């Protein structure tokens, strides 16, 4: 379990990084937290000829928050975002979901943007980005940075819309509308494992604390995060007594999971329903308490 030979680059600026990436093209890979890439190298499942280490690009280690939401720079580690008060206020779902990523040691190294680019169908953050309708910011030498919507970014298992030579510089997580609340619920075999099934739910309430809209995004039940609109099942119902099971049924019907060594497809579909119902209930409760707090 030793990686094959590669050339190591440590650019000192984003511009320099983009130049190296442009030169190495298909043969180059960005090294961020290394929590996913290094195991792949060691198992010789990936063998890039060049590694471009972005860990020295302090300019990417930013998590600015504003009225629009949270912009997570490419070097911001999971742990930093998880505990960032501004991010928690603007997009509570970020911290809720990150808490279920691996363990502290992994979260201290792994980056939010790295996780998004890696596009693991069992990873939490792609679902969060999809649920919130966020965007990825991608830069490359000689071109204008491009923005790709979450819905277009996740293409397949471990496959994103990132092109060779591109660096993902940030991910933008929009602030959910006032009066909404969120929850993340997942089931993992062991504490910190990738989820057998996971779901994020965003519920918006009206002034009478009735559901006005609700959306979910599920992981580990398809090649990419599966968005599900739950509004039909919940709209107009009280925040503390809606037909959560109906929301669950919508989710279960929307997913197309597969059997694997940890769980059957049928069980995963069952979980999609159960966990969506649970998450919707919590999200509605969170929305209500936010509304009450601001009232």
């Amino acid at each position: 379990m030793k990686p094959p030979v590669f050339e190591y680059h440590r650019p000192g600026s984003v511009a320099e990084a983009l130049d190296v990436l442009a030169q190495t093209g298909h043969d180059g890979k960005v090294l961020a937290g290394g929590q996913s890439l290094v195991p792949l190298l060691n198992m010789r499942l990936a063998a890039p000829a060049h590694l471009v280490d972005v860990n020295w690009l302090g300019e990417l280690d930013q998590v600015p928050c504003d009225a629009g939401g949270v912009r997570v720079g490419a070097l911001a580690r999971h742990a930093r975002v998880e505990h960032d008060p501004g991010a928690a206020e603007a997009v509570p779902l970020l911290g809720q979901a990150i808490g279920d990523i691996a363990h502290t040691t992994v979260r201290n190294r792994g980056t939010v943007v790295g996780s998004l680019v890696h596009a693991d169908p069992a990873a939490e953050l792609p679902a969060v980005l999809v649920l919130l309708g966020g965007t990825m910011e991608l830069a490359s030498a000689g071109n204008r940075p491009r923005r790709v919507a979450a819905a277009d970014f996740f293409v397949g298992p471990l496959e994103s819309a990132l092109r060779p030579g591109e660096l993902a510089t940030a991910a933008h997580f929009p602030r959910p509308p006032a009066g909404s609340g969120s929850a993340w619920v997942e089931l993992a075999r062991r504490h910190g494992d990738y989820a057998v099934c996971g779901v994020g739910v965003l519920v918006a309430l009206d002034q009478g604390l009735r559901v006005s809209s609700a959306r979910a995004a599920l992981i580990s039940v398809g090649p990419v995060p599966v968005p599900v609109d739950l509004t039909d099942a919940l709209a107009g119902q009280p925040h503390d007594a809606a037909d959560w099971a109906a929301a669950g049924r919508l989710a279960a019907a929307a997913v197309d999971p597969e059997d694997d060594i940890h769980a059957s497809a049928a069980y995963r579909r069952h979980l999609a329903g159960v966990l969506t119902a649970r998450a919707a209930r919590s999200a509605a409760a969170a929305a209500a308490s936010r509304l009450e707090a601001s009232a």
Partner: protein
Amino acid sequence: MTTRTMGEPIPRREDPRLVAGDGRYLDDLGRGALAAAFVRSPHAAARVVDVDVSRALEVDGLVAIYTYEDLEGPMAEPLPLLIPHPRLHAGRTAYPLANGVVRHVGEPVAMVVARDRYLAEDACERIAVAYEPLAPVVGLDAAVAAERAVHDDVPDNVAAHMVQEHGDARAAVAAAPHRLELDLSIERSASMPLEGRGVYARWDAADRSLRVYSSTQTSTSVRFALAVKLGVPVDRVEVVAPDVGGGFGVKIVHPWPEEVLVPWAAIRLGREVKWAEDRREHFVASAHERGQRHHVSVGFDDDGRLLGLDVEFLHDNGAYTPYGIIVPIITATQLLGPYKPGAYRAEFRSLYTNTVIVTPYRGAGRPQAAFAMERTMDAIAAYLHRDRAEVRSANFIQPSEMPYDHHLTFQDGRPLVYDSGDYPATLDKIKKLVGWDEFEAFREEARAAGRRVGIGLACYVEGTGVGPYEGAHVRVETNGTVVVATGLTTQGQGHETAFAQVAAEALGVPVERVTVVTGDTRRFKYAVGTFASRAAVMSGNAVALAAGKVRAKALRIAAEALETDPDDLEVADGMVRVKGAPEREIALETVAVLANPLRYAFDEQTKLATQFVVGRGAEDPPVAEDDEPGLEATDWYSPVRSTFANGMHAVVVETDPETAEVRILRYCVVHDCGRLINPRIVEGQIHGGVAQGVGGALYERMVYDENGQLLNASFMDFLMPYASEVPKVETDHLETPSPLNPLGIKGAGEAGTIPGAAVLAAAISDAEGFFIDTMPISPSELWALREKEDG
């Protein structure tokens, strides 16, 4: 005044070093050594047609590539079958490197030696092996069907077939008023030590001697095996087990292919060579255990008392049988636990499959045995609508019936005779600890809150401390240090602490003065190894006996010096004193000086000991004819048979009505391993054992596909429990001394693991209201069972 050390929960002295990262494990040694790596079969069954190394030769830093063609003499023969048995009629072992055929994914085909491991792996990748794949035998069904054979000359795939019987069990079952038939299965798991296997060899060409460091549970036997395989005289071979990062059984197997090949290459190349196993190699090229399927026929009376018990089981031994049939023999004989079975019959077939070999893993056949027996007890109780504890109690061997002869033959070839134990008292304690009688009230309360809970109980008896022998050497140095050496190895069990306690107590010195050396053949050459919960019993008693001899010698010499009778002396706190006249005393280190008359004085201490001052008569030789210099002794402990520890686990679980997740609310253990040397160490052993028991019950399995590929060969998909999955363990002890050994102790190393699958299956069944007959169980599987129950 003597400070007691036996029985004290003193902290493990090895921990500060190991916990702070100061351990010296195999891969910490031999920094400058060449690295070995192996080309391993990607097929479960194939003929090796050709090995083309030409592209590998381009790798800069490559030193050598070896295949079977390069092996000669004993190296070209199959590896030893370590424990032959008359019932193992078709035992087969592997060659160090594949000889034309591979029989499991991971079998080594070629060895590469290079400047470092990176380059060695580069070269491995460039070696092109042409295989002609064969259809593999995977799983017990395929092995039994025998449409294909793992070994051409074993067409039915049966390596061993064995029956043990006492009474006419089938007749007894047939004649019983009540009968049940059960099919009970357990899947594979593995020892999975955090440090894999590893070997580092140094050949001294001028001295013609070989030093081998191996991450092994038996350095003494590796030494003999290497001498035979490599054709090096035994006295030119030294084997050292450095710090070993866990063994749990897998490292008692030896010599592994890599364990002979690395020193062999070191000799051929005249260079140091090292190999440290990586995790994927450990999954596919070391050993697994537990895969067994049992059919139980049981006959019983109205009280649930066993009248006849007839157990047939199939054991999947993987591709080879280097460790013989120890595991199924243990299942067959330990299944009886604390019970009188009436008539008993156990029959097993041990079958070849194209999978990794099966050798003992902590518990070694007992977790399967406890699962079969304890599920049977639960089934009987359910059938009779009786309390599960009551049914067990009706079958207990009573303390007054000890020693109890089962009229069977145990794994050591000796009669299966329990030496002592108080099962009714153990049951009382566990019921009290878990609150057995109050559980129904808790269940109702939980049910009212929409929660599902269940309770389970499982008992076991464990034969521990198997022979044939262990020895120890104890020496008092002239600075007062006491050095204890045993040939037995250590893998984190706390031997440095426990053996120091035994020696300190036997010798009458403070425990801090005692240092312990284990597993180094330079220091002690004869030993068996650390397995089968035997170290404390075997080496513990040997240390006590050797220390006793040293003490006797110290008293004799001190008596001369103090001009008194040895019987009037005692040793306490490192001083030999006249009883009742403590001012007349002599320090043990001074006795050590007196014990060794010297020619040369090189410090103040030794000036006292030259032949010119030691007080023997001018006509007497400085060392008496029947004496030896030095205050030291060696002694041995060899028991007539094993001693039997026992225990009971009780568990409360909660199952999620929707997701079928299982949460352990309480995990209680009552344990009787005779006299305790150090309760803290015993607790630690129980905690670790429970962690592995929980792992085997709820998380771990080896997932082979129909092609014999192990689908979860990494820590990402093989789910060893984290600390967060292991429950808090509540323990209580009984101390029923063993009458078989001087210290009255029994083994404790494996106990915590044994009833894990049984007790969790019982508790989950109790929560769910249906019978679970297969372990481990995942939430997905539990949910599927619910769906089936609900129709």
